């Protein structure tokens, strides 16, 4: 019954993935317009980031540029990719947490070259050529609702600890574990492939999670909501920025950065070749990368600004390399095989 449920769910999501490429219009999650109604020009931005997290940045940017307005379209990373790659939708800036899909857009020639000052402001590891730059970094974390655990349970410090914890407290976790569905979520797929690159422990964890009827989600937000209302006890691979922004101490949820390795993601931005006013996209990008923009992002997400120092002082934070190596797992055959393996691991009898 459990297996059938997971499989059916997966099949539906797989179908929607397959169909998304041929759909006439990409699906958006939310849309909002910032700025004065009488603004002379409007910047169109397509992003995976929640509008709530972006609002302070939009307001600060428009305060500096009162003649502009800003149309913010939020979509999943798959849809963001499809919007540019397949549908050639006109946006002036595209930001996404799915580094691999952004890399594919840039590799396939869908991004415009950025001016030298923007490129030179980025360290080598935070950009690819002059086409793609990182605007923020954040860890991918493990969330644990400690209030649901027995008193005095030590917090897991690594995946090995986590596997032990899940085995020891199977009744508590049964049906109350959440993680990304890599079939529909670009970011979830990226995190899993990076997990697999770092260590084989992800496969053992998948087996354990599969036995505990793990539920699959499209987005970090839904998992956090599940933790807050008690549906979930644990969420694996959640965007750190969302966790910090939405959880309060009263929720009794611990944010854990596993010490064996914690994948660190870069939010990347590109000006697509479909842009009708690339100058505005670049202006917004300059603002996002400026000290002020970085400070606002850091405050909104609770994450440190883009900084190489982080990786030196916290060696367990493992940055995802921003290079065409990311494209390997996007290959249809490789992706199919990887997802099949993942589903098989999760589908333990």
């Amino acid at each position: 019954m459990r297996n059938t449920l997971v499989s059916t769910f997966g099949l539906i999501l797989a179908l929607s993935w397959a169909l998304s490429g041929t759909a006439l219009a990409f699906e958006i999650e939310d849309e909002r317009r910032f700025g004065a109604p009488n603004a002379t020009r409007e910047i169109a931005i397509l992003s995976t980031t929640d509008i709530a997290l972006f609002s302070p940045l939009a307001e600060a940017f428009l305060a500096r540029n009162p003649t502009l307005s800003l149309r913010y379209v939020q979509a999943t990373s798959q849809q963001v990719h499809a919007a540019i790659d397949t549908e050639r939708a006109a946006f002036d800036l595209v930001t996404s947490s799915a580094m691999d899909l952004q890399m594919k857009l840039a590799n396939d020639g869908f991004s415009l070259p950025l001016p030298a000052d923007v490129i030179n402001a980025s360290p080598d590891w935070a950009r690819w050529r002059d086409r793609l730059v990182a605007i923020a970094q954040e860890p991918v974390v493990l969330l644990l609702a400690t209030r649901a655990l027995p008193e005095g349970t030590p917090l897991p410090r690594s995946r090995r600890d986590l596997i032990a914890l899940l085995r020891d407290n199977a009744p508590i976790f049964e049906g109350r574990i959440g993680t990304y569905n890599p079939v529909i979520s670009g970011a979830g797929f990226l995190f899993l492939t990076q997990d697999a690159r770092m260590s084989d422990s992800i496969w053992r964890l998948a087996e354990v999670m599969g036995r505990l009827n793990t539920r699959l989600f499209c987005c970090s937000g839904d998992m956090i909501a599940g933790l807050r209302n008690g549906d979930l006890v644990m969420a694996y691979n959640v965007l750190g920025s969302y966790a910090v922004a939405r959880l309060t101490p009263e929720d009794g949820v611990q944010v854990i950065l596993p010490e064996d390795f914690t994948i660190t993601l870069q939010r990347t931005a590109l000006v697509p070749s479909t842009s009708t006013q690339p100058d505005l996209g670049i202006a917004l990008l300059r603002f996002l990368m400026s000290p002020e923009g970085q400070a606002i992002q850091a405050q909104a997400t609770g994450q440190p600004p883009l900084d190489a120092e982080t990786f030196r002082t916290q060696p367990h934070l493992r940055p995802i390399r921003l290079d065409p190596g990311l494209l390997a797992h996007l290959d249809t055959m490789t992706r199919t095989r990887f997802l099949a393996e993942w589903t098989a691991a999760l589908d333990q009898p």
Partner: protein
Amino acid sequence: MSRRMNRNMNQRRPASLRRRLVVQLIALSAVLALILYVAVRLGAERASEATLDGILGAATIAIAEELRSVEGGAELELSPGTFSMLAAMGEERIFHRLDLGGHAVTGYADLPLPTATPTALTAVFYNAPYRDAELRLAAVGRSLMIDNRPTPVLVIVAQTREGQRAIAQQLANRAAALGLAVFLIAVPLSLLAAGTLLRPIARLAEAVSRRGGHDLRPVHHRAPAELQPLVEQLNAFIARLRTTLTQTETFIAEAAHHIRTPLATLRSEAEIALRQAQDEPTRVQLRSMIRATEESARSANQLLDHATVLFRAEQQAQDKVDLGVMTAALVDRFGPTADLKDMQLALSLPSERLETKGDAVLIEAALRNLLDNALKYSPADSTVDISLIRDGINARLSVQDQGRGLGGETLADLSQRFRRGVNVGQVVGSGLGLTIVAETMAAVQGRFELTDREDGGTCATLWFPLSV
């Protein structure tokens, strides 16, 4: 017009040796710099292309080998490391394509196919444009058992080569900068080389020009082997010239002797005969004979004077000549001739000693001819003013007569050989006097002017450079 221009071009002086050397050396270094640039550019491009092709081919073969047959198809696991490595140099873009049984199954289905059929062991490399990029592609073919049937597999991996091109260009630019530097250094170096090469020639020229005009000794100059033939020829030429000059000198002396002596004898014989002759017709004949002899002697003297002037002007003797003493002596010598015509010779000399450098024999001949002319063309009972005075860095000697003037002719006309004035009348002369004066003044680097005086007569002025 064009013919004239051609002639002008043909007549143009050949370019100087220094210029030729410098131009050739600079052109050579420019060619070398260009060759360096092209060689480095091509070399860098070839080397980096070969290296990158090796990596691309190995990656393609590795991917083809990783392909495994599974039930109902094939299974592929692309390694992120391979892609990272392929993109590493210069952040290249990567594309790939996998065909099973002639159908694209994964990757970029529209990636250009190879023209040749690749095998499993060696990759086929080719270039093709794709989307907005120029790609370098590697293709590998193999065969895979799928559902018990051998199925052909084609793996294509492509990368852009912008970084490689940028690096090759950078190397070539460095080579170009180096070439330019070599070229720039070559300019002063070739000037230096030209100077060094031409120095022996300049030394030889200096050694030859330093010699006096009558120095006809052979040139003993240590010239490089290449210049030795020139020195030998020069010495041979000098030897021939010396022989010729000696012969000329001898000839002039002989001629003077052979003409003057018989004329003098003839004249004295005629004078004796005149004194002894009684009848008037014979005396008239003898007188005309004496006048003819006189005329011949004068002409012979002038011809010899002129020959002497020509010969001695070549020799360029540098005697110190006291112009005052010489002028006074000449005026003394012409005293009896002037007395015969009842003429006065008024001489005005400066108190200082005015000396010039030159051939004393020549200068005396010039002054003699000038005084002779003044006396010859002046009427009886007139005065010839002769004055010598310092004029700046020159000594100015003027001879003014009250004769018939120049008759509208110029010095240039009158100083031509055997050319006499239109107003000479019955006065005897050879037309060589003024030629001698003009040639002498040229030899001593002085100046000669001949002008009409306002109140009739001629003024001849000579400027001699004063010796320091």
